[in-house]
Structures are given as C-alpha cells and as structure tokens.
C-alpha cells in the first residue's frame, strides 16, 4: 500500500480559553493518498478550518493543544519534528486561502511577493543566504521569469504586466489565480484549499474550480478541499469526509456518499440543498454545540431525529460497505 500524504488518526484538539477548555476537535480521522483530492464538508463552526490550520502549521498553540491522536504528513509524525523541520515541510504544501483579497500584501507588487517566496524557497531556510540571493541580479531575474511562468500556468494572459501590479489593481478572480500560481511556487505535493471560491462571483467561481482541477491533475498533487458546497465537492473530490462538531462522521467516495448518505447528519446536509424542482429545502434544526460543554457521546444526537438511548455513548466507526465508513450507532446493532 502507498504511504498517504496526510494521515490524521483519532485527532483531538482542545483550546484553553479563559472560559474553560473548549473541546473543538473530538475525533478526526482522515487520510489523503498521493494524487487524490479529498473533500472536507460541514457547516460553519464544525472545525474544518481548525483542521486546515493545523495542517498548515498556523494554528496558534497555545491556546490550542493536541490532546490526543496523531498527525502525519509526508510520512512524518509532526509531534516528532523540530520547529525548523516543521517549517521546511511548508514548502511542499500549496495553500489556497479563502479570500485572496486580504491575503496579498497591499504594499508590495505581485512580483515582489512571488519573487520573495521563490528566492526564500531556494535559500534553504537561511536568512543570510536569502538576503544575498535577493540582491543578486541574475537570481532575481530568474525568479521573476519563474514567477511569470507560474502565472502563465494559471492562464494569466500577460504575466509580466500582472507581476508589476499591486493587489488593489487586480480583480478578485485574478487575485485568486495569482494565489494559485503562488501556491505552486514551492515544489508542492499537497494542496490545501480552504473554501477557495466562496469569496468570488458565481461566474468566476466556475472558472476557478476548473482551473484548480486542471492544475491539481497536471501537477499530480494530493489535496484537501474544504468547502460547505456539496456540489463543488462532487465536482472535484474523489472522496469526501463529512465533519460535524469536530468529528469526521462519515466518509466515502463522493458520488455514493451524496446519493445515499448513511449518517443522519450527511442526510440532513444533502436535503438542505435547494432543488430545482422548487420548494424550500429542509434544514437541520438546531446549531453546532457549545464546545465548552459538548453533549456526551454522539455530538449530533441533540439534533438528530433518529437518536436513541445508546447515542449517549460515543459511537463506533464502522464500514457498512467497502470504502465507506460511518460513526453512528444505527449501523452497529441499531436501537436496542
């Protein structure tokens, strides 16, 4: 079996706040195989972004603490890595953020920002070497050419023009494409995209998704695609994880998972999609629980219409079909 690019096993993350301990991530298990795009769906506040930040190495610790489980990336256990080795891994991760507007520095041209990244990656994480290279004419012009080449890859027609622009001079879709190009500037093996199209116009969304799909396939990247749009997940992701209140409740190949959801929460999500046939979509009553005092056992139980007594205990993860897994008592003996 091939080694997965990312493996999270029974991950638990707590936040130490002044109000007490917030148990945000309770049990996340997730695997991304090389070359595979995996979706992570769920409503706002269910811990998707915390998971992404953890993988990106920008989760502030403290207040966050890894209270249990294991995080492995590129076959390395992150808890065993020193901060330098951890930082070095970042070069292999392509990060596509949610909102391209705030993510680009308003005071520097696209070119400066891309060249800085390219030269830094070339400098082997040594500041002194970076400063020498950054002021070396030939190196900088080579980096600039490479930046233009990357912009070309994301179908920007006039890369050199864009390189000399400031972020405010570009449109939202253009900025997101610049982000995609930047994401390629290391030598990425894994892409982490955190709702990369939510901040864009619907028309631009479509094109950006096409581009992203294309790019991932061409570069042979593995990817984690975080979204709350199930349609987008179906279009891009081979497999999808459904997350609720810090738990991965169900996973499986995206098509079957959305067509015949197993977990009551997934069913609720699917039913909440507005249909073309008209009529208001059904919604899931209630809201994501308070992480300071989460319900014991299954965290979805208070909102679940099929809940029964056993749901007070944490449900086991079972595989009722091949490739699919679900954490729910319904599939382990049912009500008794």
């Amino acid at each position, binding site marked *: 079996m091939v080694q997965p690019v990312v493996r999270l096993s029974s991950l638990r993350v707590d936040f130490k706040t002044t109000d007490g301990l917030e148990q945000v991530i309770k049990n996340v298990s997730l695997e991304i195989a090389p070359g595979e795009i995996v979706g992570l769906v769920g409503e706002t506040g269910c811990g998707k972004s915390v998971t992404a930040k953890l993988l990106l190495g920008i989760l502030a610790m403290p207040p966050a603490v890894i209270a249990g489980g294991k995080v492995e990336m590129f076959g390395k256990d992150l808890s065993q890595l020193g901060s330098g080795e951890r930082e070095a891994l970042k070069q292999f991760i392509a990060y596509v953020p949610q909102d391209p507007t705030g993510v680009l520095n308003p005071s520097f041209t696209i070119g400066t920002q891309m060249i800085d990244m390219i030269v830094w990656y070339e400098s082997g994480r040594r*500041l002194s070497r970076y400063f020498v290279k950054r002021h070396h004419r030939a190196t900088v012009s080579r980096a600039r050419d490479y930046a233009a080449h990357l912009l070309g890859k994301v179908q920007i027609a006039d890369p050199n023009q864009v390189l000399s622009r400031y972020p405010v001079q570009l449109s939202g879709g253009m900025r997101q494409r610049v982000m995609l190009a930047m994401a390629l500037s290391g030598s990425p093996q894994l892409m982490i995209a955190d709702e990369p199209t939510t901040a864009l116009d619907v028309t631009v969304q479509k094109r950006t998704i096409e581009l992203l799909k294309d790019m991932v396939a061409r570069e042979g990247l593995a990817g984690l695609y975080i979204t709350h749009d199930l349609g987008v997940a179906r279009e891009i992701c081979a497999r999808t994880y459904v997350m609720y209140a810090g738990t991965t409740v169900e996973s499986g190949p995206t098509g079957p998972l959305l067509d015949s959801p197993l977990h009551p929460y997934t069913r609720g999500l699917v039913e909440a999609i507005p249909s073309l046939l008209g009529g208001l979509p059904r919604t899931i009553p209630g809201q994501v629980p308070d992480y300071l005092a989460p319900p014991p056992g299954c965290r979805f139980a208070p909102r679940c219409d099929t809940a029964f007594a056993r749901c007070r205990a944490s449900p086991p993860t079972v595989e009722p079909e091949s490739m699919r897994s679900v954490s729910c008592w319904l599939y382990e003996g049912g009500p008794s």
Partner: protein
Amino acid sequence: MVRFLRRVLNTAIVVLFVSLLMFLLVRVLPGDPVAAAMGEGVTKEQADKFRAEMGLDKPLYLQYATYLDQLAHGEFGRSLIESRDVGEIVSERLPATLELVICALLFAVVVGVPLGILSATHRNGLLDQVSRLCSLTGVSFPGFWAALMLQLLLGAALALLPITGRITGPPPEHITGLYLVDSLLTGNMSAFGDAFRHLVAPTIVLALGPLAQVTGMIRSSMLDELSKPYVSFSHAVGMPGFLINYKYALRNAFSATLTLIGFLFPLMIGSAFVVEKVFAWPGIARFGADAILANDYNAIVGVTLVVCLFVVVVNFVTDELYVMLDPRIRLQR
C-alpha cells in the same frame, strides 16, 4: 512638478500669514519692550528716542510694511536683548537646535521601531511589559529632572560625558553648522568625537518622550497588522518571521508613525528649550524663550518664522515619504 510648485506657493502663503499673525500677537502681549531692554531708571525722553529708533512709534501697518521690506532684503530686524540682527543670531543658533532635534528624532526612531515590533511580536511577554512601563515613564517624565539626573550620573559621578555645551575644543570649519556633519566633511575626527560626546546626554533627554510615543505607536499598529490575513498566509507558506515582521508588516504599520514623526518635529523644537537651558546648549529654542520673556518683538517673530519654515518643509518630506510607502495613495494620483 506642478504639485511641487503649488506646494512652494502654499508654503509662501503660510509663512506670510504666520509672520502677520506673530507680528500682531507680540504687539498685543502685555509688557513694554523698551522698558525691558533699557532697564530701570530711564527718562521719558530716552525711552521715546529709543522707541523712535526702533520704529515702534509708527502705526502698526507701517511697522509691518517696513518689516516685510526688511525681510525681503534678508534682514529680520534688530534683537533687543542681543543688539544685533535676528537673522545673524538665528543662523548661528539654529544649527545647534537642528542637530539636537534630528539626533533625538533619529534615536527615537532607530530604538523605538525595533522595540515596538518586539513588543508586538512578544505581546504581553516580559519585554513587552518592561517596554510599556518604560514608555509610560518616558512620556510622564519631566525633562529637566531627567536632564539633571543624567548630568549627575554620567557627567559628574561617572565622568563619562561633558556636562554642558556643544563642544570643548575648537569647532569644526563652518559648512552646515551641524558639528557632526561638518567634522565628518572636513575629516576632523577629534571634533566629531568631541561634539558627539556633548550630544549624547541632551539627545537622550530630548528623545525620551518621542521614543515612548514611537514605540507605543509602532506596537499598536504592528498588533493590528499581525492579525491580518496576509501575515498568517505568509506563515502558512513558510516565510521567515523576520521578513514577515520587518518587511511585510512594518511597511504597512509605519504610516501612522510617519505622521507622528511629522508632528513630533515641531514639538521637539519647542520642548528643546528646557534641554538647551539645562545643558547650556547654544540653540535657538532657548533664545526664543528668552526673547518671549524680554518682549523682544523682532526676535520672537524671526524665530517663529524660521521654525515655521522648517515645520512646513518637514511636513512636505513626510507627505512625500507617505506616498512612497503606500502604493494605494500613489495609484490614486
């Protein structure tokens, strides 16, 4: 270029207006310059004669016209307390104050900016607490007390620095009037060291308040910037903290401090008079203060005009820097 010319025109108008305002204001102030200049026991005839000599017996508008005419010829009129042309005194004393103020401002920026950044990046850490405490002390410290303490400690007790004056040996050849610059230009290193040692204590005293303000301003704007998405993005892609703090965030955090520096410059010329008094620094601020106490009309107006001119120039420079710093302003032009 058009912008520059417009700026020059604006400057001329401002200076003219300030001259009129000051000219009238000093004459409204209570107190008789003639009595102050001639002392006790002067007869009415002597006083009237002096008044006529100075042109103070003429109507105001004539006095002002005469004054402007003098100005156009580069004369600022005679000072009562020093009995020579104000222009001459100013050109002698202004460099001393400028040297002091510029050094203090440089000191405040060079020390305050990194300190503010460290405070922000290690928020609520030991360094942050200490620097905030020092900032608070810095702004609330009476300058004359700090000056006396420094004189006692560094000058008298440890005998490290001279206590008063600008220079002990012969001053360097006059080029700009700034001793540090002149001694460097003429390669006179002993004069440079001499002038530098004299500058240390007054610079520190004058810089205390500004240093605290710069540190605080940088700290708060940096805290603002560090919470922005571009900073966490840069961390996520593995850029080094040094670049993120000193290049990316500082560039955006600096504009507020630039404005502050523009404000601080004239304020420091004003507050320099305490420092100049305590350290016997032959500067213009002390002369201005003396002139006000003595009702020395020409001196007050002259000093004010020159300082006003510098304030306008500094504002112009900070405005230009502001534009250079922020592409969004540049693009709107």
